[in-house]
C-alpha cells in the first residue's frame, strides 16, 4: 500500500470542515450520544409516568 503521509500535501493547511471535526472527536460524540437518549427517551419518558393522574 502506498504511504500517503509523507507526500507533499497541498491540503495539509486547509481547515478541516466542522462536520469532520465532530465525527473525528469521539468524546464529543460520546457526549451527544448519551445526552440524546437521556433527554428524549429517559427524562421525557419518566416525566410522562410521574405526571399520570391518580385514579378518582
Amino acid at each position, binding site marked *: 500500500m502506498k504511504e500517503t503521509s509523507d507526500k507533499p500535501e497541498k491540503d495539509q493547511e486547509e481547515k478541516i470542515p466542522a462536520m469532520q471535526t465532530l465525527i473525528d472527536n469521539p468524546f464529543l460524540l460520546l457526549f451527544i450520544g448519551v445526552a440524546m437518549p437521556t433527554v428524549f427517551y429517559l427524562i421525557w419518558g419518566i416525566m410522562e409516568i410521574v405526571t399520570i393522574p391518580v*385514579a378518582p
Partner: protein
Amino acid sequence: MTSFMPPAERIWWKVPVGREEIVWILIALTWCLIMFFMMPYWHIYGKQNLSNEAYQTTPAKYGAKVQEGIDQHKVGEEAGVPIVHPPAGSDVYMLGRLWQWWPILELEKDKTYRLHLSSMDWQHGFSVQPININMQVVPGYEMVLTVTPDQAGEYGVVCNEYCGIGHHTMVGKIYVKE
C-alpha cells in the same frame, strides 16, 4: 485501500459522494418520512389507536372497582369466574392476577366500552385471541381503552407476559354477543 485503514484523504468530508448513494439516500429518506407520517395519519384517520388515558392506582383500590362492576352487572358464572354484562357505553373493569383474568366480560357487538385494565400483583399480558390485540398490564397503573368489538364470538384472553409458574393457566374470556 480498505475499510480498516484511515481514509485516503485528510479531508474526506469534501470528497464528492457517488450518484448511486445520493439516489439511494433520497429514496430511503422518502420512505422513512412516509413511515413516520403514517403514525400521525393513523391517529387521525385510523380506527385502531391507543389512548394514553391512565391513572395511578393501587391493587386494593382497583380491586374494589372491579368488585363493584361485578356486583352491579353479574349475569352468571363459568368455572367459578363471574360473567359480567355491563351496559353499552359504560366503564368496564377487568383485572389480572396470578393466574386469572377476572371477571369474564359479555359485550355487545358494535357497542363501545371503556375497558379498564390493571394488575393486582405482577405484570401480565392482555392478549385477546384469536383477534390478536395485545396490551401490557402493569400493577399500580389503570389503563383505559375505548374498544368497539365489531365481530361477534368467543374470545380467549391469554396472558402473554411471563408471570410465574402458572402463567400458562392464565386464560380469561370475553364474549361478544350479536
